[in-house]
């Protein structure tokens, strides 16, 4: 049994609160006795009589609050007891009624005068009806929900175009309107680059890179992943281009998407060719020629798109970026050190992504050079199903895909899925683990911490075989994000993770390491 205490000088909580709290604290597992009170002599006498006295309580005055406790150290700590105290205090203060939450959209419109955007994340089968209702009321829509049918999407977007409203989504994860991040978005500097993106993490990566380069965004419009498919015909991307073209704040426009359906690409590019503002286009792995022909700027990566947009804005020369921020000799030193730490049978890649478009980017680049099993394989024979339990060769996974998230939250919100894959898939044949760490509103409160924990435990496991682990990461976030870029990078570095400034640079570094170990 341990006896401990805490004193807070001139701390006052009303009596009822204090009494209820001391009762609640006795319920903590391992707590034998606990007293909470004001530091009067007689109260200290009681503390003494109960053998709870510590030297700390000797200088106490009647206007100080104390907690004195006796507890089983193997079951709880003083910190836990104090934390429980603080939680109780706060719970009490939060007990008053919160903001009014109306039950329907119609009522919400009456309560929030001048509402102009509805963010919808209710189950898909109900979402279309609410979105339609919102559009009918003249509100812009951010539809985060998935499982909305193509027919419904088309109907909604047609209505939106007719009314000149945004209909972002379904399955739209990211947008920033008037500087406000919606759903999964980062906190960015405001500026002159307008973005229309059909892919969530792709848009995040581009905008974060823009921020890192010292520029900002005017508006970031999400369209949802199906916008550039044949049936939807790019309705929202077209509307987005028009809106940004007539937006005086926007000087440069960036379009981000996976390769569109050919007919849709044609339509979008013809719109682009008529646009009076510079347009940077990253149709990840799309047709660069056609983009050039339309008078737009094609890109080789998400990071490259950001760099070219910034260059266009600043009137600088626009050149493709295919290297590293760090000088070549530094990169070589990192690669040398990593390779030197590995045993000869450590040859394989384990890329465990939470962001879909970031996975695409990695697969597109590394898949050219290596045979990689994936849930988004380059060829059907490399599908993850072909692995059948036994783990061999390179693996790259988009853990945000339905097959991994069924019945549980997206790995960007809950890192558990990725932790499990660390445990099951990082083995003695692993040379490099490649991960992303997506920050911003809506994301997990500490994704870097979760990665660090996984890396540490994998490293401990491999150490038993006398092996090292090389981990490479990039952090998609800014210093203004709630999770803080700097703090996340520091957490990862502390766990011995090599942190690169962008996903593409992380991928290139991994490519260099793999090339060396497979020699």
């Amino acid at each position, binding site marked *: 049994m341990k006896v401990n205490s805490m004193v807070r000088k001139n701390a006052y909580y009303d009596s009822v609160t204090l009494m209820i709290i001391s009762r609640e604290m006795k319920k903590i597992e391992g707590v034998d006795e606990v007293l909470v009170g004001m530091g009067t002599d007689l109260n200290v006498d009681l503390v003494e009589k109960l053998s709870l006295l510590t030297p700390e309580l000797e200088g106490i005055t009647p206007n100080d609050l104390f907690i004195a406790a006796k507890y089983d150290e193997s079951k709880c700590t003083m910190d836990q007891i104090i934390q429980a105290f603080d939680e109780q205090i706060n719970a009490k203060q939060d007990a008053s*009624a919160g903001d*009014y939450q109306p039950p*329907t959209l119609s009522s919400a419109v009456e309560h929030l005068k001048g509402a102009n955007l509805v963010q919808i994340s209710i189950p898909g089968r109900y979402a279309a009806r609410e979105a339609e209702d919102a559009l009918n009321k003249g509100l812009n829509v951010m539809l985060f929900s998935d499982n909305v049918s193509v027919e419904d999407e088309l109907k909604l977007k047609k209505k939106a175009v007719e009314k000149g409203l945004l209909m972002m989504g379904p399955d739209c994860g990211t947008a920033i309107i008037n500087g406000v991040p919606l759903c999964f978005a980062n906190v960015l500097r405001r500026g002159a680059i307008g973005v229309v993106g059909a892919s969530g993490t792709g848009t995040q990566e581009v905008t974060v890179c823009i921020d890192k380069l010292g520029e900002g965004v005017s508006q970031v419009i999400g369209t949802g992943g199906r916008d550039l498919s044949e049936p939807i015909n790019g309705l929202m991307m077209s509307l987005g281009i028009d809106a940004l073209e007539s937006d005086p704040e926007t000087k440069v426009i960036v379009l981000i998407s996976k390769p569109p359906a050919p007919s849709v690409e044609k339509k979008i590019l013809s719109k682009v060719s008529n646009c009076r503002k510079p347009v940077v286009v990253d149709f990840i792995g799309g047709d660069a020629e056609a983009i050039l022909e339309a008078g737009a700027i094609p890109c080789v990566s998400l990071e490259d798109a950001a760099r070219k947009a910034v260059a266009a804005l600043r009137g600088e020369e626009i050149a493709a970026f295919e290297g590293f921020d760090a000088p070549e000799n530094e990169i070589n030193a990192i690669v040398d050190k990593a390779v030197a730490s590995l045993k000869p049978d450590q040859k394989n890649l384990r890329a465990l992504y939470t962001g879909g478009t970031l996975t695409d980017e990695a697969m597109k680049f590394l898949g050219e050079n290596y045979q990689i099993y994936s849930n988004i394989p380059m060829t059907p024979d490399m599908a993850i199903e072909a692995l059948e339990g036994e783990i061999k060769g390179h693996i790259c996974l988009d853990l945000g895909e339905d097959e991994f998230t069924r019945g549980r939250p997206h790995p960007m919100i809950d890192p558990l899925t990725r932790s499990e894959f660390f445990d099951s898939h990082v083995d003695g044949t692993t040379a490099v683990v490649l991960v992303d760490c997506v920050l911003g509103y809506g994301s997990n409160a500490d994704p870097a911490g979760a990665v660090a924990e996984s890396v540490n435990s994998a490293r401990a496991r491999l150490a038993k075989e006398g092996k090292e682990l090389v981990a490479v990461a990039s952090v998609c976030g800014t210093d203004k994000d709630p999770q803080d870029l700097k703090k996340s990078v520091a957490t990862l570095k502390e766990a011995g993770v090599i942190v690169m400034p962008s996903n593409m640079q992380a991928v290139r570094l991994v490519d260099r390491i793999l090339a060396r170990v497979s020699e």
Partner: protein
Amino acid sequence: MANFIDQANKEALKLMQNAQPTLIGMGIAKDTLPGMRENLILHAGPPVKWEDMSGPLRGAVVGGIIYQGLAETVDEAKELAASGKIDFDSCHHHLAVGPMAGVVTAKMPVFIVKNLDQGNYAYCTMNEGLGEVLRFGAYGENVINHLNWMEKTLYPILKEAIEIHGPIDIKSMNAQALQMGDEMHNRNKAGTSLFIREIASSIVKTNASEEDKVKVFDFLNSNDHFYLNLSMPGAKCTMDPVGKVKYSTIVYGMARNGTEFGIRVAGLGERWFTAPAEIIDGLYFPGYSMEDANRDIGDSCITETSGIGGFAMASAPAIVQFVGGTPADAVQYTTSMYEITLEESVAYKMPNMNFRGVPTGIDIRKVVETQIRPVINTGIASKHAGVGQVGAGVVRPPMKCFEDALQAFVEMLDNEGLLD
């Protein structure tokens, strides 16, 4: 063009907004209430048989029988009640309302309230005060003596005073009381005070003895809930005309008999839609708990039906504590009632809701759609006859009442071939 349901509701709302409940006099139940007779006992809520009555209602019936002189002892009264020689019926079926047990017998004095807009009437007995009283199911000697005093002394003086004074406008008295912190269901302090102020000089002018006048004043002054028995018939005669509007989806009656909760919907005529009444998870007086509580009872939720009571909780912060909440909760309760009602009252404004009118006209469609049930402020009766009030709280009608009503409404439309 709006559909016929919306049109019907508009008409119903107009009746609610234009109603002019006015106290015009007093009388004896048998001579005033339609269909009232010697062997008929009225009770709160939807109709219920003696076998199904709860403790407090049975107690009040026994007390009522003794008071009426139909039996002398408690055992005789119980036997008579069970014999089938006494008829029971709902107050609502005789244009009356009664708080808690709501028992009315033939010789009881009643207030006569008239809705000057439509010319219809509503009736209610006088409030007995707190403690050991008939409406909580007590039937001891004190109870009967008190009822006799009310009949022999209080009634003639008040009747005469009202005659001297002339009609008293309940609507404007409600509106004032609301501004003074009453919601006219669980708090009637302001209303009672206003009533005393209004009637005082007329009481003095009556022919009664000084001593009796003093007793009457003392009684009125000691009973904060005296006005409840005026706000209730006021609400009743406001809502009754609504019940005649075909195709309206507005609830025009809500009442509980201690066993079941019942609602009535305008477009569905006089039918009751009932479900077992709830036991209230409220704030219990020291020494009492939910185990002591009777199921929800009383006609007093006619006030909520008309838009006051729990619907106007934001305006009565003083009672919020007694239903276990904060002033902010009270505002939330009132705010959420706008979700299930169709209009805001023109007459009843709430100062701390920026003089918004109380939520008016409960629409069964909105209740079912939003799953928000009307909020009712209520006292809690002990399940044992005669114990009295054991707590207070907020209660809501069972959702089943509204769902059954909605289904019946659609069936009615189907039968009339009005739906595709």
